[in-house]
């Protein structure tokens, strides 16, 4: 018996696919929400902030269930998507959405802290040099909070790799379609004689997390040197 089954490779690949897609899709949105929270004076800021942070404190299973209600065939968004012939539940898209929602607060928190720590005088200097508000944001504020954006992305990526509760409810546990590493480990542990296989996937999981940490450390250092 080899160290990993072919289905394990699928799970690893899927995990990567889900984590990368969720992080990349969420990042522009995260930057946008962080901008709203830091630089604007819109009404109901506290409510937006609460909503964004809610997934951080709710049990992932609850989030999964709420998403299921929302995206189900008779849910607000689901009913509308059915007409477009798009299905979310029990698909890879569902797994990505679940990961994105659960990881989003971590991303926004980090970007927000970064943006708040950028001295507003840099933006003022840019404005007096002829840059409009958006121009100053994209050429000064955003690059100066680059490390925070990257740190947020790393956190979210790692959180997505480990996402279990919301995913199993919204996307199910279908090998080759939505079965990511944590779901595969769960399946091994609940079937007799799967301990060894579960352990080898755990090792893979530890290794991956370690690589993410190392990569983020190195990238953060090179950003700092600039």
């Amino acid at each position, binding site marked *: 018996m080899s160290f990993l089954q072919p289905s394990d490779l699928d799970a690893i690949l899927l995990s990567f696919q889900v984590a990368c897609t969720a992080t990349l899709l969420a990042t522009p949105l995260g930057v946008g929400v962080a901008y709203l929270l830091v630089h604007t004076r819109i009404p109901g800021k506290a409510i937006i902030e609460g909503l964004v942070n809610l997934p951080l404190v709710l049990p992932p299973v609850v989030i999964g269930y709420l998403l299921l209600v929302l995206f189900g065939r008779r849910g607000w968004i689901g009913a509308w998507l059915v007409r477009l012939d798009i299905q979310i539940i029990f698909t890879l898209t569902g797994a990505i959405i679940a990961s994105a929602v659960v990881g989003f607060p971590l991303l926004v928190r980090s970007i927000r802290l970064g943006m708040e720590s950028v*001295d507003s*005088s*840099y933006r*003022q*200097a*840019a*404005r*007096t*040099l*002829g*840059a*409009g*508000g958006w*121009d100053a944001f994209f*050429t*000064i504020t955003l*690059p*100066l909070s*680059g490390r925070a954006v990257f740190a947020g992305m790393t956190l979210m990526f790692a959180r997505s790799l480990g996402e279990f509760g919301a995913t199993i409810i919204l996307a199910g546990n279908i090998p080759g379609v939505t079965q990511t590493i944590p779901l595969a480990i769960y399946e091994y542990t609940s079937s007799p004689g799967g301990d060894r296989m579960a352990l080898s996937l755990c090792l893979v999981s530890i290794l991956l997390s370690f690589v993410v940490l190392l990569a983020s450390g190195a990238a953060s250092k090179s950003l700092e040197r*600039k």
Partner: protein
Amino acid sequence: MQLDVSVRKQQGTFEFNAEFSLTGRRIGLFGPSGSGKSTLMHLIAGLLQPDSGCIRLDGTVLFDAAAGVNLPPEKRRVGVVFQHAHLFPHLSVRRNLLYGWRRTPEADRHIDPEAIIEVLNLAHLLDRGVNLLSGGERQRIALARTVLTCPRLILMDEPLTGLDEELKFQIIPYLNKVFARFEIPLLFISHSLLEMRLMTEQVLVVGEGRVEREMATEDLAQSAWAAPRQGYVNLLRLGRPQPHGDLWVYPWGDVRLVLTDESDSDENVVELDSREILLFKRHPEATSARNMLPCTVGKIFTVGNRVRVELHCGAQQLIVQIVPESLRELELAEGKEVVAVIKASAFRRLL
């Protein structure tokens, strides 16, 4: 430059009120910390919005509460050099310099980057990052960056505060060179009278949230003398020196002065404290002091136990501070001849 300001701005418990009209090229905003100088600068640059009033620069309305006009900072063409330079830390010196230039419409770009790089001596810094530069280098880059946007007016907010004395006097000639060569009007903010005298011709005196007075910088320097414990410092602009034994002879108009300090520049500015000048009724035959200038007495003012005497040496003017008793013993009066005696080491070279 013609600047008309009439604004009101409430910030917490601090109320700022300014009403003035200015014409000139080199104007100072002078006042103690917390008097509202920086507030005024932010209002003119568009970084703060007045509660009411209007601001006009050379016929362009920058702000008018009644008409609902409020140009954003990037449309005002008012450059700002901040006290801490605020160079963008993620860009190289070159990209910092060109940040504003690239955003200036081509029709307005009448200053060549090469020219300013040469005047401010920045060529060797271009490819560096900005985090390891000295304070003086940072200020020169900040100035060049602002000049390259070809603004109608440059505001400098205490640009020399925080630099040590020596550095300060190394930078002032650069500033003077830039403003003379590129003909950009300057509004210079400072609480240092000496900086004002070296950089500006005219000053607005700001205090407690109001513009109190507008006057020539030299008048301000002389009026400050009336305050207790404030001496007057003569600033002398001298030409290129010639060696004279182990000392140096500088031309000062048609007068020659002997100094201990050497210089290889055609223009030198030295300061001379008004209390370091001795007056003699007749020419002392021999003294240890190297400068003995025959002068005519001009106006005399007395405040408390200090007397300020204006002296005319040829076309030049010196101000001397003495005590009332000396005034009586020397029988000084307007039009009388005296000899001013100054030690060669009493002069301190600034620029």
